[in-house]
């Protein structure tokens, strides 16, 4: 599966609409480059990247903290 295919599967999930992150239908046929403005999408991408690259848990936690921490 490509990164994009995996991402799409997450974006298609009802939960994102329910929790207000995406509007109905926005996740369908999304491309990797889409929705860069949405933090949740970036989080997902980080996870996908890290797992496919084979990064360690520690490294991935550090990366996400880097992205989300503000001080």
């Amino acid at each position: 599966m490509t990164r994009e295919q995996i991402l799409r599967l997450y974006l298609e999930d009802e939960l994102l609409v329910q929790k207000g992150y995406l509007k109905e239908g926005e996740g369908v046929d999304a491309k990797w480059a889409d929705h860069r403005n949405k933090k949740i999408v970036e989080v997902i991408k980080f996870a996908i990247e890290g797992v496919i690259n084979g990064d360690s848990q520690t490294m991935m936690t550090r990366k996400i903290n880097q992205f989300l921490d503000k001080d």
Partner: protein
Amino acid sequence: MCYAGENRFDFTEGMNVIIGDNGYGKSKLYDAFYWAMYDECYDTNEKEWKKTRLIGNSLISDKAVFESSDSLVRASVKLTFKDIAKDCQYIVERILTGQKKGQEFITDTDSVEEITYRQIAGMTGKLITSPDEVDRIKKKVLPDNIRPYMWFQGEQVESIIDFGERDSLTQAINVLSNISRFDEISEVADAWGESASDQYHRKVKSLSTDKDSSDRLEGERNKIVERITLLEKDLRQYKDNLGTAEEETDKLVNKQEEAIQIRELDVRRKGLEQQLTQTVEEEQFERVDLYQKMFSRRWVLKGSADLVKAYNGKFSAYNDIKITKRAEAKARIEAENNIIKKLQTRLPVNVPEPHNVEKMLRLERCLVCNREAEEGSEAWEAIRQLLSEPDNDLQELEKELATNHNFESDFRRLSQHGYAMEQDIHRVDADIKSALRRLNRLDKRRRSLADDVEKVNNDYANLVTESAIDGERAKRLLSELQAKNEFANRFRANLTRAEIELERKQKELEEIDAKLGDLVKGELPAWLEEKKKLLMDFRDLAQSTRERVFDKLVKQLEDEANKHYRQMMQGNLSAQGIIKLMESSKGNYMPRLVDGEGNPLMQLNTGNIILIKLSTIMAIISARQGSRDTDLYTLITDAPMSVFGEDYTIGFCKTVSSVYRQSIIMSKEFYKNETLRRQLLTDSEINLGKVYMITPSIAESERSNRNSLSTNIKALN
């Protein structure tokens, strides 16, 4: 069974079948494939794989050891794989050598492996020496993740599809498509969620206005968290236990059905056997009777009526002569007497009347002239002459006719006897016919009963073997079932209790967290709030998506399995149900049969269960979209088809031959059943490869001598 000497099989595309009865060496053949590739064999008694070093000696044929002139014996298996795309061959050979040392025979500890690569056209082979390359080739020829579903023995069907091990369905689904990615992402999400949660919580603590209260709350909180962890562990345990109990109950319920069937068959066969014994006795009795009738009903006289005629001819002649002679003599005597009478009397006959004459004789006096007539005197004789003497005549007659012997009564008796017997002779034919008819009826009945008995005995034996229940277990089944049900109920109760408590504790946790939050002065940083929310949501998302993807793959697997299942059940009217992979309390998946409403169909027989499992195994490979696994790799199995019954066996063959480009099936079903064998060889819907039949070289009864055993391999097409 013994494969001493050189034995060769040439397989083609299509479904190749090796036919042999139990004990003829089919399992050994399967072992050969596996051993050549992986240096192991499956021990069916202990249900585990064993490397060569653990089983060495038993791999070498006794006959080969016995017959070897020099003390070395070599066992080897050579598998030739053809790469159709590249038009080259890989030859995998494994060799085990052993040596005779006096009375003992010792094998080498390890086997030797040789992999050769060659282009078919050129026919030059190159021995592969690099271990990495060897490994690569073996994986190329049969990838590890596919192996369990392509090369398996009948006994392993249960365990392959058990999906009881938490990860085994995941493993299977992974063959379809790589779901492990989603598991990994879920794990990452969990870790992130937890770390963010901790981070948040620490911040809350640090911002607390009342350190003492927050410490106290913290203490309580920790206890709650501890308790929650324990409860979660317990919950997992209870779910596990419940799942196991439910599975075992299911198995027992199914077995119960079979146990009932077994009991019924047992009763039926005993009844039939009794009838058979009775009929045999009756028949024998009739037979013995038959030969007694030969004499008591005069059957032995059949066709001899001419004798009676002949004898009576003689007897009539004899009789006629006697009568004639008597008549002649009588006439003559009468004539003689008449003449004498005429010459001697002057009076008319019977004058005086005889009573007067007798009086005169008594008185010894003539009453006419009143003269004395002494007895014996001339005068007395003259008077006597007046009497006509029939007695005298008779006596004279008899004297004339007298012979030395008088056998008339004997001859007459024989004649009468002959006539009496003649009457009997006339009805002999009809008599024999009706006796034979009766015997025939009994014979027919005996035959049909014997057939029935054989069939029922076979069914009984098959059922007992395949269901692995004997008579004793069958009786205990009901109480076992009850016990298991009780367990299940107990676990269910524990589960519910734990769930309730967990909910309560989680609520308590929330409350404490709220209290802790209330103690916070100022505000928590927005980015932290956001981070926590994002990562908790992501955690939920990862779980949800994983489930969705997983479910989709499961559905894909189900659909494919049902396709195979339907094809195999084709033509069977009683076939019903859809295969569904259902999640149990344990969290694992079991293939089940359900009806239109999704209700599980209970009481499946062993045959059904195996078919479902086989369908699922086949689906794992065939459902791989975009893959050519069924094209590239060979199915090798000795799946137990006997539980299916004949109809399903052919359906199974059709399905297998259509799903896999090449398969090698080892079967005993086609051994005894010639009709089935013919069907296999002629059915156009079965894409057939080579069919071999293996038989032992010597008969069953002599097989105790292992030194002279060998195997005959015969190609049937």
